[in-house]
């Protein structure tokens, strides 16, 4: 009960709001600052120094004490300033397979002055530190192990700093609603896609693959960069993709019904493995799930489409 109350108070104080529209600039009212534990210890130290200076009537002791006290005040400004006016944008959040480490990306820019040791972290996780210089955008990637298939949300991020001397913790919250698509974990024990799923085609007709050069065709988004005809591009022709032919005898359907396993996740793992295998062999393949069918094709865009379908599969329910 108290935890809930605390959370709602903290949400109210720190203005937990809906996901924000980038870029977010850390303006004055967004930045909070409090002493760290080190800061409190420092305060206690200066108090002891002050008492000793009074007691022993040490003028230079007073000088020392007051220097440290004022320095703490100045350090507060420096810490605050180290965060102020930073501009944040969402960064790369590439999809991963379950069990791999996903990265939530945040890009940080500074309008002036290099900022040292700016850290970003998710609630209760290890922070990632970066220096932000005027010349280049700092890309901070927060590593998170993707345990489960599906969409992993980053949640609210804390951006903070304790630079220069660690007496104060200045922080701000930002929520870009970053997400990473987590594909099912491929199951290598699934082996090759089942043979009887192949429908026979006429032997000897070239089908797209990657063994022998066949023809140039217009570029389609998703074509692998290594297949782009750079020489043709250099001759100021349009963007073309080289197509290779393979002697293939079948068109492959990767089918939910073929994956015989105990539960949904295990089945998806098998399907995922088959998609990867088919993609690796340059095979043209389609994907059939309950309530969804993706027509046979190939290439990176197609593979991504299939993997996303597997990642977001909800058992055929709408």
């Amino acid at each position, binding site marked *: 009960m108290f935890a809930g109350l605390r959370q709602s108070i903290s949400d109210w104080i720190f203005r937990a709001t809906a996901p924000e*529209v*980038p870029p977010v600039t850390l303006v004055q009212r967004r930045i909070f600052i409090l002493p760290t534990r*080190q800061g409190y*210890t*420092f305060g206690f*130290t200066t108090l*002891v*120094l002050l008492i*000793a*200076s*009074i*007691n*022993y*009537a*040490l*003028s*230079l*002791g*007073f*000088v*020392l004490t*007051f*220097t*440290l*006290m*004022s*320095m703490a*005040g*100045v*350090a507060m*400004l*420096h810490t*605050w*300033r180290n965060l*102020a*006016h930073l501009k944040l*944008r969402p960064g790369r959040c590439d999809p991963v397979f379950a069990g791999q480490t996903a990265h939530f990306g945040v890009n940080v820019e500074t*309008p*002036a*002055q290099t900022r*040292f*040791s700016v*850290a970003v972290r998710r609630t209760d996780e*290890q*922070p*990632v*530190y*970066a*220096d932000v210089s005027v010349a*280049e*955008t700092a*890309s*901070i*990637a927060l*590593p998170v192990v993707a345990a489960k298939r599906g969409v992993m949300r980053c949640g609210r991020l804390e951006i903070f700093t*304790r*630079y*220069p*001397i*660690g007496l104060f913790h200045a922080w701000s919250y930002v929520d870009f609603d970053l997400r990473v698509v987590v594909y099912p974990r491929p199951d290598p024990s699934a082996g090759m896609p089942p043979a009887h799923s192949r429908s026979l085609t006429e032997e000897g007709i070239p089908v797209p693959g990657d063994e022998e050069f066949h023809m140039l065709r217009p570029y389609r988004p998703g074509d692998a960069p290594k297949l782009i005809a750079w020489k043709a591009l250099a001759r100021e022709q349009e963007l073309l993709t080289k197509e290779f032919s393979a002697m293939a005898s079948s068109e492959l359907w990767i089918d939910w019904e073929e994956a015989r396993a105990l539960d949904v996740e295990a089945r998806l793992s098998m399907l995922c493995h088959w998609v990867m295998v088919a993609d690796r062999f340059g095979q043209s393949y389609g994907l059939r799930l309950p309530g969804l069918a993706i027509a046979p094709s190939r290439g990176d865009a197609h593979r991504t489409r299939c993997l996303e379908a597997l990642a977001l599969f909800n058992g055929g329910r709408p």
Partner: protein
Amino acid sequence: MRSVALSPHLDVRNVMWLLAAMVFVVAPHLLRMPYWVSIFFLAIVAWRAWIAWAAIHFPGRLVTAALTIAAAIATYFEYRRIVGREAGVTLLVAMAALKLLEMKTQREVVLSIYLGFFLVLTNFLFSQTIPLGIYMLACVWIFVGTMVGFNRVGSSPTLTQRLRPAGALLVQALPLMVAFFILFPRASGPLWALPTDSRSGATGLSDSMKPGSISNLIKSDAIAFRVQFEGDRPQYSSLYWRGPVLADFDGAAWKVAEDQNVPWGDAYARREKPVTYTVTLEPHFKRWLFALDVPAKSQIPRGATLRPDLQLMTSADIRERRRYETTSFLDYRYGETLSERGRRAALQFDENRNPRTVALGRQWRREAADEAQVLQKAFTYFNREFTYTLEPPLLDPRNPYDAFLFETKQGFCEHYAGSFALAMRAAGIPARVVTGYQGGEVNQINNELVVRQADAHAWVEIWLRDRGWLRVDPTAAVSPLRVEGGVNAALGPIGMLPSLIAADPMGLLANMRDAWRAMNSQWDAWVVGYSIDRQRQFFAQLGFPDVDWRTLGFWLMAATILVGSAVSVGLLVRDRPRRDEPSLAAWNRFCAKLAAAGLARAAHEGPLDYLRRVEAAQPSWAPQVSDITSRYVRARYGEGATREELRELARRVRDFRAA
């Protein structure tokens, strides 16, 4: 671009910085401590450095516990206690070293750094001179630089990247520090009683004197007491501040007479030239007060008594600053009737020690017709071939005065006074040693006479028939300047920079030395000596007499707010980002409105691409969006825009409703 996922860790270079800072801050202590402390401290620092460098294991808990106990025991055997200034600081230094040996986490690093700040303070217990102040400032700088290093997580800062932010912090802290220093109300005394030896060794006369005891004292520039005269200040050469009178002699040390009731003869036969003054005495943890020769018996300060040897004593140790007013007679004659008991006490000495000095005294007696001639011979003798120096050679502990008079011939006031008094006793003239202070330094600002430990002095009183007790100062025979102009005047040409000053025809070095001394006295008066009195005086000079701590507290708050906001403004306004160029600002507002309606501009999207997308998504907005976009593109990328056009753009953005 570097991004490291690391918690704060102990970087080798950071650890080395901290170790260096520790060595720097402890170095002045090591110079004045027993040598085993230096060995202990440096060995442990080296060990810790090796641990960091070679990434080897830390010692086990048993080892550090054993070292801790060993350090405490060694400290106890060195000082016979573990509290008090010397012992306490020794223990603190040892413990700081051991703390380094246990330092494994960021938290312990922080504690070590704070301990370092405390060690800076302990240095001020021993000295508060300008050079030490500067040195300690450098140490604080390094410590803050170390803090900066430990807070640069994931990257190893360069020397500049450590010292520059640290320097900036210290420089920006300066205004507030000065305000606090001036305004913070000073206490009138310590908050609790200090350990009894907190001033041992360095300051204050003691109840015995042997060769070397005063010349140690003389190196301290701590203030002994300050004097405000009513009316004119007496001549410098008559400023003999009488302290402990030493009549017992064991062959090496002169001591305060064990028998306090010896009738020395203290009746005044003549009392002329009275002078009244107020003394502000610093605590010296002994019972005597100081007064000029000779104190008036009618004006004894409250709580004090005047003993038969004209020594002013209080009933308890002086543990806090004390002010008293008293009167003295500069032209006097006293003690013409010396009792037989007093006479015997003033002639006593050990025949077996210092035989050559004793023989010399007896020889003078034989050759002289009367006591005046004995004195004459003695002065001639001391005038001839002795050198006044603060660094006399070591003397044979059994016959120190023989060694001094016949071998080394270099000494300080206690050498002269001690050997002179012994020779007088051998010659049959009753004599005793008087210690105290001679002279002082006039503060030109408030006309106050400041007497420092450096003015400590020893002289001799002899008793002559029909004349009573008579002050003779054998040091004056050797170095008249000592009595005319103070220790520095006496030492200046001989003791300090002999060859350089001699080869300085323009007087440049002498001028520099004078300037340095003037600076030091200002420093002592206004920084080191900035006490409650000085604070009152300072504000009185500004036209605020009688400020109390409430007023000061109020001003302090006001100053904190004022200076604090000035520094904040200076710091924060300077780096506020420049305002966007007006057309860009208007465009950003426009994009924000569209974004709120769900059509955020992608980072890579140019204005025209964006326009196309918005038009496709919301055809009804097309005219307005197209108008604004083209105005913006013209203003920013085209021929530019007049002030009116910019205003028009801003107005249209304002009026645009994404609904």
